[in-house]
């Protein structure tokens, strides 16, 4: 039997909850934890943990700085150019690029084998050959496409 007592419980220590979980963790996650220790040790020896520690602490600063420069006109132009370059790589027909590289390689070898410069007649004959006309067609198509896009 008792008179009523005013009482305020001890403020909850939410960290203590984590502490309890931590105490149980080694048993529950033994293998993963052991592997993690190896990874941590290796990273520490290479100085990576230090860098990571610093980076995490400066997360807002780093993100802010990166985003600030990325958001400048130059930054956006640079990212767009990178993306465009990536697009070129993905949109170009690999067969064409492959042919182009083989052609460059072949022409280089042929040129190296020429003992003297060809005559004008030989050049004109080569330039007006069916193969050369085919190549010129490709190059003029590229040229006119470029001119069209610059117009837009």
């Amino acid at each position, binding site marked *: 039997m*008792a008179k009523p007592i005013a009482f305020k419980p001890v403020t909850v220590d939410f960290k203590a909850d984590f502490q309890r979980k931590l105490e149980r963790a080694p048993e529950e996650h033994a293998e993963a934890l052991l592997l993690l220790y190896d990874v941590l040790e290796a990273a520490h020896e290479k100085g990576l943990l230090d860098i990571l520690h610093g980076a995490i602490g400066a997360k807002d600063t780093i993100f802010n700085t990166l985003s600030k420069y990325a958001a400048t006109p130059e*930054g956006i132009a640079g990212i767009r150019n990178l993306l465009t370059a990536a697009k070129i790589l993905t949109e170009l027909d690999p067969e064409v690029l492959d042919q182009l590289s083989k052609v460059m390689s072949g022409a280089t070898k042929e040129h190296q084998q020429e003992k003297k410069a060809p005559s004008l007649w030989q050049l004109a004959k080569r330039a007006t050959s069916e193969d050369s006309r085919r190549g010129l067609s490709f190059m003029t198509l590229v040229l006119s496409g470029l001119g069209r896009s610059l117009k837009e």
Partner: protein
Amino acid sequence: MANMKKLLNTPVDHTPNTELTIDGLKVPAHAGGLLIDLLNQRTAAHVQKPVPQVCYLEQMGPIQSCDTCMVKVNGELVRACATKIVAGMNVETAGETVDIAQREAFDRILQNHMLYCTVCDNNNQNCTIHNTTAVLDVKHQSREYKRKPYEKDMSNPFYRYDPDQCILCGRCVESCQNVQVNETLSIDWESDHPRVLWDGGMQIEGSSCVSCGHCVTVCPCNALMEKSMLGEAGYMTDLPTATLNNMIDVVKGVEPPIGYGPILSLSEMEAEMRSERTKRTKTVCTYCAVGCSFEVWTKERHILKIEPTHGPANGISTCVKGKFAWGHINSDDRLTKPLLRDGESFREIEWDEALDIIEHTFKRIKNEHGPDALAFIASSKCTNEESYVMQKLARAVIGTNNVDNCARYCQNPATMGLQRTVGYGGDSGSISDIEKAGLVLIVGANPAENHPVLATRVKRSHKHRGQRLIVADLRKHEMAERADIFFRPNPSTDAVWMCAMAKYIIDSGLAKMDFVNKWVNNFDAYKKSLEPYTIEYAEKITGVPANTLTMVAHEIAAADGVCILFAMGVTQHCGGSDTATSLSNLLLVTGNYMRPGAGAYPLRGHNNVQGASDYGSMPNVFSGYQKVDDPDVRAKFEADWGVSLPTSTGKDNHQMIDAILAGTLKALYIKGEDTITSDSNANFVGSALEKVEFLIVQDINFSETARYADLVLPAAASLEKDGTFTSTERRIQRIYKAMEPLGEAKADWEIIQLIANRMGGNWTYTHPSEIMDEVARLTPLFAGVSYHRLEGFNTLQWPVHADGTDSPLLFTEKFPFPDGKAKFHPVDYIPPSEETSSIYDLHLNNGRLLEHFEQGSMTLRTAGIKEITPNSWIEVSPELATERGVTTGRYVQVTSPHGKARVQVLVSDRVQGKQLYMTLNSVHEPVNRLTSSFTDRDTHTPAFKETAVNMTLLPEQGDNPLPRRNFRYGKRTPQSGLEIERKWARADYHLPGTAPADKLVQITSTTV
């Protein structure tokens, strides 16, 4: 009615009964159904490409604002959401015209909304704008995003509105006007810059917004968001604003060459990553008995949000408590270790020591004084399983039937009245019946504040489906304001007008005698008992004019289904059981049982007060209301439990208090209840709690009752355990554990088992499902209940047969009496126990508030609730205030024969004359210091509503106890809905896809 809104709690019938053509294919369909529902079903079955839609939510019905669901029907462009299925219609969901229209509509939306999904807190795989961008495979937007000239509104404690992200879909307006029916939100369509308005203005704080959360839940993007999500939900959303803005600028800058595809993919990866750390757990609200169910999203212990989706009772609906009031879970004054009284304080001890003390003391008391010297009070907030094991501890281990629960304070008279007449003491049907009734009569209940989601169904049906609404109450609350007829009987006289109306109906030939003759016994005795209850007599006693009484009688007789909703205004009187009986008699004589849309609906108060009684925590019954003094029933339990059981009815909690004071009760174990503030006549109860030799209080916080305890045990909160609750609809629902108990707190069932086993119980439950299996084995009412059948959002409404069929509607075939018939139970009116006098000249009514639950133990621990409603108050009518010279804010002392309380005045026309209303939300000056020990004659429920007081002005004039920011000062702006026609009337609007310029050029690009 030209535009009947759909029912919210009744699934739409999609049974095919006709046929149409979709993209050349013949498809079965339900005539009159919405085309968009059919298309969505086909999408879900993977036979149809998704049709984009932004504003449409099946649960709300069409609002026709986003225009993205455009399809062609019989060659014409139409909105799929607003098109009803007709036999033979020809639907095209693909093709250039449709594509142009859909894209044009969505492009208009993107002009209002900046897509930055990867750094958006709403990027949780359920964002409608994000998902529609993906469905339409939008590469670019033609219209540039435009900011709005409005600031973010952070004034509400729970959510914020960002006009810059608002797409003006109107879902929030529709949900506010026609689901919650609080009628706060609107859109100023005629403005140069339309935006969402609160009470027609631009600030949420101080408006009539009740923070129910509907608008936030239905918002298809991040314009309306829970504050608890901001900076918490995403991996990068807590970066400083400047950084986020830079990142958004970068994304917008690089978007032109690559389109939205890669950026959206990035955001989808980020959204998927969130699922690793955001847990979504299904639970049921811990507050009232509507039984709202939803998912709680948590990140460790941080509650990100409550997400209602398709709970059977509530769907997308919540109230302020269910949506936002979860501060008690992580309150820093939670109990985490057992506490032992030590001199003038308490000290923490280990569980073993606590159990040692309990074992030693229980055994000593039992040996010295017998098992009936111990008593147990179960909780209406704890689970069904916990109610069951509490009564099993009392009966099987200790050997006493001294077990009860807080239904004693509130619901037992309703149960008595219904059991006497129709056999079962529960709601006759479901909320779906209430919303389709022809007439809803609310007696002594304030559902807009105490059962808010249930009340939304009544409000919606009243507003849009022609439902009639009649309210009988002392106080002009929201439902009274909306009612077609509102009358105010004198306190404690409801039984009189109910009997008078029944007599009038019989005498006028309006009674449903076919029904009565077939299904109800004892009519002649009942009719004879009504002879004194003439309309004139009723007018004299109740103070209600005769023509009002007859008008209401005619309404009841004529209605196509009458649901009577009632609560403490009926039950908490000396004649509470008789009033509930009169109510049920009235329903019987008018044929309002055994059919949908009719019946008696005692609105249970707590999340599990229904279950606390259902599962046997009562002195006279085992689980399922099987009588303890029935030898066959007792033999069944004895055989299963392996013990001998006590044979006579035990003490209810009122009798326990008397027994303590008489010296015969020595130990009391209270689980999850603040008895000193909940029971009537607090001073009287306090004297008993001081005297009892050994008091254990088990709770999540150190309550006022714990101050009297010898031992306090820390319990887990609802989000920290598994189990089930039973709602007012008799609906049994699962709660799932979302997080571990705090500190060394344990689930109540675990604690009870530990105690039982110390006392020799040999219990071996490892999970609440095993407890439920035992209940099902022993309880015909719950024979088919199992956790398997209750998985996820599945529910069962008792009775549940062994094969799992449940009972949304009671009495479909007969009544549960031996001859299958109900029975009239005549009553005699006896005046109230405590009437006003020359000394105590005022009548004190009391009750809850919307934003608080009972005394505020849980709700005051949510900062936002405390902010908008920090205080309790007493409502004084304007005429009484003038007479006594009192103004709002003045402190008064309210005195009754039983005690006194100091409280501030709020002058309000909700009360009239010499009637006062004191709010319950205070443990320091609880209203129960004023209430008496008079009880209902049949159930001992305290007559809380029969209290006479006087009021003395104190010198102190304080501030208004209700801060100006509270929603009660707001002025609603009711309208039929979104009023989308006003948008269509704008000069700059045309139906998408109908203008030549609507053909957007989509730059094709490679999607990464």
